[in-house]
């Protein structure tokens, strides 16, 4: 890895650090989501369940991702930008497990809901985006980070597809179709608001691991239509309409 003073991150504009700070927030959530998933899977399938162990490992790996993001964010001060004073340890031990989906679902259905939402949809999208990000990132801490995260996201995505395959052998899983639109909408629409302005979004920040919104949208759309939807269709799960799928943007 290049020394600090030679790392391309030293030349990054401020929006780069803003994006990575937002990413860290999401990775904190991932720590708790996978921890909750690991617990649910263990309760369902027993303490020796391999998928539960993968989910627990995923939680630990997401914690490492928080560390990667923190390291990048710390460069903001070195690069001369105002530092957002964040918690030194954003992942606190007292934080509870996070859960997704309606309360009304049974434990086994709730587990599948989380697996599809987190792994099949979000982590699969993450994998596709990170592949492109890796292609464009400059050598240094950013590229190193993306490479490590991508390696993990592949495993995290597989957790959901594994659980879906397993549950489909013992019961119908197509009830998930009812919730699919909302899951996808949540995956592609942040509830913390826009991070970059329209002007900033037109900058080429790919060296620092940030794709242009139009490019990201293309990849998301492509992955939804050609990987995630066909994957879910294998198990009889289909989106009710294409209303929430992102429209493929025209290149500008």
């Amino acid at each position: 890895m290049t020394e600090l003073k030679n790392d391309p991150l030293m030349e990054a504009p401020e929006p780069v650090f803003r994006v990575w700070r937002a990413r860290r927030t999401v990775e904190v959530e991932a720590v708790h989501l996978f921890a909750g998933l690991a617990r649910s899977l263990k309760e369902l399938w027993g303490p020796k369940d391999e998928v539960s162990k993968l989910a627990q490992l995923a939680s630990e790996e997401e914690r490492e991702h928080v560390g990667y993001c923190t390291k990048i964010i710390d460069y903001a001060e070195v690069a001369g930008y105002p530092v957002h004073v964040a918690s030194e340890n954003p992942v606190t031990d007292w934080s509870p497990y996070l859960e997704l989906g309606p309360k009304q679902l049974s434990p086994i259905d709730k587990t599948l809901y989380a697996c599809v939402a987190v792994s099949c949809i979000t982590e699969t999208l993450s994998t596709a985006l990170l592949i492109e990000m890796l292609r464009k990132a400059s050598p240094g801490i950013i590229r190193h980070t993306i490479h490590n995260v991508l390696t993990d996201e592949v495993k995290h995505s597989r957790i959901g597809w594994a659980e879906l395959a397993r549950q489909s052998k013992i019961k119908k899983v197509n009830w998930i179709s009812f919730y699919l639109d909302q899951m996808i909408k949540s995956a592609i629409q942040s509830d913390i608001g826009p991070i970059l302005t329209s002007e900033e979004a037109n900058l080429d920040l790919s060296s620092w691991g940030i794709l242009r919104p139009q490019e990201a949208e293309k990849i998301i759309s492509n992955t939804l239509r050609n990987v995630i939807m066909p994957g879910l269709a294998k198990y009889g799960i289909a989106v009710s309409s294409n209303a929430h799928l992102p429209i493929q943007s025209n290149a500008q």
Partner: protein
Amino acid sequence: MKNEKLFQLLVIGGALLINQPASAHETNPTEQPVESPELAPLVCDIFDPNKPAEENTCVQTSEGEIIVKDGFYCCWGTACS
């Protein structure tokens, strides 16, 4: 990576992780999907109204109600106004 390769890597790769016959401790599934599910409030201990919105991991409506999340945001794209 081409779509087909990604499909094989993730969807099929994931399915292959499961070899043994399934036998869940809890197999009492929801009888029917709820036709009009209402978002149930999620008790979220880590929600802190004194923290900036982006540091919270639960969502609070303008009326102050904490609502459950339907999914998990993919942060590797880019949000913009």
